[in-house]
């Protein structure tokens, strides 16, 4: 079920901002609801929408809300340019156009019965949060949940209250680190790969899901393999320029793959040869 008007994949449906919360100085979470109330707003963890700000432009943004909460679509957006800045400046009641959801999501079904190891860098935690919700809502269907989360500095950490709440769940390990820490920071300092030594991992029965800047994902996949994860148990979410999200504009091509419809989530085994190619 897509949130597009008249089944035309290029036409956005009218949504309204219901809630805005500030995560960090440059990152906001918006909760959108359909203007007319009708829409199921359902999505798979890892999918994204094209969000349109009237007259400004459209952006691919991962959905970062709870897949089981119908009627609401939640996005965590970081301001990095004119269009994102415009999006995070929306107020409650403002209209936002939504197309989607698009893309192939995280392998939450395949991960049932296994441990779920999530490694997130920076804003990369946003597309992974729906997986955490999914696992915690269906706790008995999954094994252990381990989150390794790295951010630039303590001020840049997302979802702080939730991180603390998740850490209290059973069979759940939440490890957080920052690249740069001030003297008041009592937590870990160092790149996200330094968290591996503190994680209780069972690689043979785990599925790893990784999201963050591409370089970070390359370091992390190396570390995962050093720790015994097999390549077909590792999943990454890739990013490229996107204009249409439906495989027509050609911008998001990654080798023969379209990130918008073959991805954005890929099994590491499939894209490993491409990750090594500079300027692919």
């Amino acid at each position, binding site marked *: 079920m897509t949130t597009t008007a008249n089944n035309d994949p290029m036409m956005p449906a009218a949504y309204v901002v219901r809630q805005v919360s500030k995560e960090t100085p*440059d990152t906001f979470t918006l909760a959108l609801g359909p203007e007319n109330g009708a829409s199921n707003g359902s999505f798979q963890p890892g999918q994204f929408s094209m969000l349109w700000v009237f007259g400004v432009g459209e952006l691919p943004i991962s959905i970062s809300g709870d897949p089981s909460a119908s009627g609401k679509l939640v996005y965590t957006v*970081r301001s*990095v340019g004119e269009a994102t800045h415009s999006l995070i400046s929306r107020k409650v009641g403002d209209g936002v156009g939504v197309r989607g959801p698009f893309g192939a999501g995280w392998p939450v079904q395949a991960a049932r019965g296994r441990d779920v190891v999530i490694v997130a*860098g*920076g*804003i990369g935690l946003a597309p992974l949060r729906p997986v955490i919700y999914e696992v915690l809502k269906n706790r008995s269907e999954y094994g252990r949940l381990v989150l390794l989360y790295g*951010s*630039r500095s303590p001020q*840049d950490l997302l979802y702080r209250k939730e991180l603390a709440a998740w850490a209290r769940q059973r069979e759940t390990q939440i490890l957080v*680190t920052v*690249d*740069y*820490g*001030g*003297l008041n*920071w*009592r*937590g*870990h*300092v*160092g*790149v996200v*790969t*330094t968290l591996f*030594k*503190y994680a209780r991992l069972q690689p043979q029965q785990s599925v790893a899901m990784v999201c*963050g*800047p591409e*370089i*970070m994902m390359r*370091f992390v996949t190396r570390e995962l393999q050093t720790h015994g994860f097999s390549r077909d148990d590792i999943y990454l979410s890739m990013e490229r320029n996107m204009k249409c999200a439906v495989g027509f504009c050609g911008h998001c091509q990654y080798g023969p793959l379209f990130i918008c419809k073959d991805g954005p989530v890929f099994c590491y085994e499939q894209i490993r040869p491409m990750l090594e190619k500079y300027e692919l």
Partner: protein
Amino acid sequence: METLERIIAEQPFFAGLEPGVLELVTGCASNVRFDAGAYIFKEGDEANEFYLIRGGKVALELFAPQRKPIIVETLGVGDILGWSWLIPPFHWKFFARAVEDTRAIALDGKCLRTKCEENHDLGYEMVKRFAHIIERRLEATRFQLLDVYSTRRRA
């Protein structure tokens, strides 16, 4: 209460050492504790020991003029703190502060240095292990340098 020898033998860092070599190492070892907030060593001091952290957390810090103090990295259980004891001119390059109450095994670097010069088998085993640690730290540091989460326009 475990003997120091057994504790050291069980540490992954010292795994694979022959009993004779292990004895030499143990001869230079002792148990230490640091309260939260205490400085373990300071930049510029002579580096005469290194530590194997058994509990708690240690922050490596840098102070530079006109900047707030920065924590470069934190180390925790199982980590090795300090390799400047092995490399001339044997001075610490950072401050190390216990963030939490920290227990560690302290190895007398000066003592070990002498033993390494006398016994090259011991020397080689130490250098091998430290080379591995330095390589991991270097990789992590380069990753840190990339500042991957920044939104600055890259060249």
